[in-house]
């Protein structure tokens, strides 16, 4: 994985000192709360309902054991012994004191981590396919480009006070495991007819209260021009976005208002201008970064056989592992969705255990996923049983990847000052209701947001749940048919909402319609797309 040289730590350390100075000026009253807010947000520090929350960047979701153990230490020292993985491969801590935030950032810096631009109206931490470097179906490892994008976008002077946030994702497979089309800007690494590597570029996606799936703005961009192209997109948006209504300032709104063709025309014009400046990062810098992501020394001649004699292990193996590019290896998904628990939460002790497993069995490589799970990307098949045993002992061996209990949920009204309704108890009740029946139902991605800001990705849920406030009580709307994958689609609301128990029943009714109507091999989403909303509405509102 990437290692800092003498330059990166100087930048991160300076950021810590800058923030320490800003926090001091706030505490001394030299900065007003309004002035301090955008400054702290650029360092990932939110003010929540009960305390500050600090969101730590995990660039492209990649961690090593040293970093993971530091995250565990931070959970013990500055939080209440837990961390919470987010829907953008980051981790957040919910019980932070303002006076301690700079010290926490200082500790992160000792393991080459930071919270730069994890919040606020800036270019956020770059996310990527969690299987990068391991997936059997990838063109190449997406992470060197993601790291290059990190360096292009951290502390970028022209684009640090943008109209709104700007989220970037990078993938390198036809299978989209990173919710690419729901990002403001995204690149898919592709190979053209002549075998040249380049980027398919997408722009204008996003969730929130006005969801849009991005459009393909460029079919093929030479890799060496990505900084110019990115700046062109950002400049068109920065100059022309509305500034009068924070809810209408994301790039997706400008794309919608200008139209895709006109937006593309303006970007191409600005792009031609940027190319003349000679500011693009050169191939030699890509090569330098890519060397850090050289494949680990995979052993050859390894056995492919799996001993399936333990049925619980066999079940877990079938659900939680994915095809690896190297023979004899597998990708292991670690579920952070045990039945009845908080999606994405992990204790300090579990973090230590996962760090040990990464170090011992996965070339010291651990990944976070946008679905709030973890991945050991490179495990020998011969070691899978031992890994499963260790995970099982730690309560981390749930076999529910992409099933109905593998729920994405935002922190909701239990923590978040923006929320209208709680998400966590609804996730827990659904998890308990469907425990043991997940495999029978099959792939079903369920996503819960506690308000219209959609941090729980309800627009992209096969089943989505949106918590709203209805005359002072929590109410939940049901949505169907969304997808965050390569077949991206936006979920639609079924009709009137439900109370907390009612929404759990409604989800069950929707699954019953599916089970009654599904044809061979159909996922929930396939059946919904074939039969439409009506049969579900009939069952829900009869």
């Amino acid at each position: 994985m990437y290692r800092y040289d003498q330059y990166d730590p100087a930048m991160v350390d300076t950021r810590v000192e800058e923030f320490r100075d800003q926090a001091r000026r706030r505490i001394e009253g030299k900065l007003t709360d309004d002035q301090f807010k955008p400054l702290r947000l650029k360092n990932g520090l939110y003010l929540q309902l009960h305390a500050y929350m600090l969101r730590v960047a995990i660039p492209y979701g990649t961690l090593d054991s040293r970093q993971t153990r530091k995250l565990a230490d931070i959970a013990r020292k500055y939080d209440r012994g837990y961390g919470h993985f987010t829907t953008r491969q980051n981790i957040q801590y919910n019980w932070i004191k303002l006076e301690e935030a700079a010290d926490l950032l200082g500790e992160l810096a000792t393991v080459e981590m930071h919270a730069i631009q994890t919040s606020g109206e800036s270019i956020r931490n770059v996310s990527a396919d969690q299987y990068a470097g391991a997936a059997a179906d990838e063109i190449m490892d997406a992470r060197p480009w993601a790291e290059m994008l990190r360096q292009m976008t951290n502390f970028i002077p022209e684009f640090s006070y943008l109209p709104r946030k700007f989220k970037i994702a990078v993938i390198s497979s036809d299978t989209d495991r990173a919710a690419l089309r729901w990002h403001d800007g995204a690149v898919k690494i592709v190979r053209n007819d002549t075998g040249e590597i380049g980027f398919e570029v997408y722009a204008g996606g996003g969730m929130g209260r006005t969801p849009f799936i991005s459009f393909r703005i460029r079919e093929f961009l030479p890799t060496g021009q990505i900084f110019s192209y990115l700046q062109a997109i950002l400049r068109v948006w920065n100059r022309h976005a509305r500034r009068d209504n924070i809810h209408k300032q994301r790039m997706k709104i400008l794309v919608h208002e200008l139209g895709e063709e006109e937006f593309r025309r303006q970007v191409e014009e600005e792009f031609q201008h940027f190319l003349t400046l000679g500011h693009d990062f050169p191939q030699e810098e890509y090569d330098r970064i890519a060397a850090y992501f050289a494949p680990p020394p995979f052993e050859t001649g390894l056995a492919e056989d799996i001993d399936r004699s333990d049925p619980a292990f066999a079940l877990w193996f079938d659900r939680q592992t994915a095809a690896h590019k190297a023979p004899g290896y597998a990708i292991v998904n670690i579920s952070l969705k045990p039945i009845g628990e908080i999606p994405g939460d992990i204790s300090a002790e579990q973090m230590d255990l996962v760090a040990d497993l990464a170090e011992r069995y996965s070339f010291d490589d651990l990944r976070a996923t946008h679905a709030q799970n973890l991945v050991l990307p490179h495990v020998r098949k011969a070691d899978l049983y031992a890994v499963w045993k260790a995970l099982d002992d730690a309560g981390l061996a749930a076999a529910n990847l992409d099933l109905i209990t593998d729920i994405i949920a935002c922190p909701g009204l239990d923590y978040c000052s923006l929320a209208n309704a709680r998400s966590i108890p609804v996730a827990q009740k659904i998890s308990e209701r469907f425990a043991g029946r997940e495999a029978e139902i099959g792939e079903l991605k369920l996503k819960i947001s506690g308000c219209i800001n959609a941090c729980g990705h309800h627009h992209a849920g096969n089943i989505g749940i949106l918590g709203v406030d209805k005359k002072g009580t929590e109410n939940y709307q049901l949505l169907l048919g969304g997808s965050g994958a390569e077949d991206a689609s936006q979920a639609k609301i079924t009709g009137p909402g439900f109370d907390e128990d009612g929404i759990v029943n409604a989800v069950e009714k929707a699954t019953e319609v599916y089970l009654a109507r599904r044809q061979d091999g159909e996922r929930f989403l396939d059946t919904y797309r074939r039969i439409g909303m009506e049969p579900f509405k009939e069952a829900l509102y009869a």
Partner: protein
Amino acid sequence: MLDVLRLRDDEPTDEPAVSMEAFLDQSNASSVRIEAGDDVRQLLPALERVRLVEIDFPKLRDGRGFSSARILREAGYKGEIKATGDVLVDLIFFMQRCGFDSFAPDKPFDPEDANNALTRWPHVYQHAADDRVPIWKLRHGDKG
């Protein structure tokens, strides 16, 4: 406290800045004021007679002025670019990198805070409108 922070050696002009519309209409003006919503590219044909461009920041979170300054520098403008309005000292390093070389904030700067802001960063990751050499160039032996 600093009401104005100026990073240029030449004599400041005392000509009051006029709106871009007025500037383009009157051929003898040399100071112009750009509002956040103005298209600064309209000024480019008349750049030769500009000595001072004031770019206004109506509120802390409105970053349009960063792009306006860079566009002027990219077009070869060498005169003064002054940031006015809700300019917080924490933003002036990025502003300087985008081409601003003077600041007239609504609320005066603490001189020590301003000095810290401008001298704090040992390196930069990207090219901008200033002459700082990005880290990727330093890494590959080019000191600019």
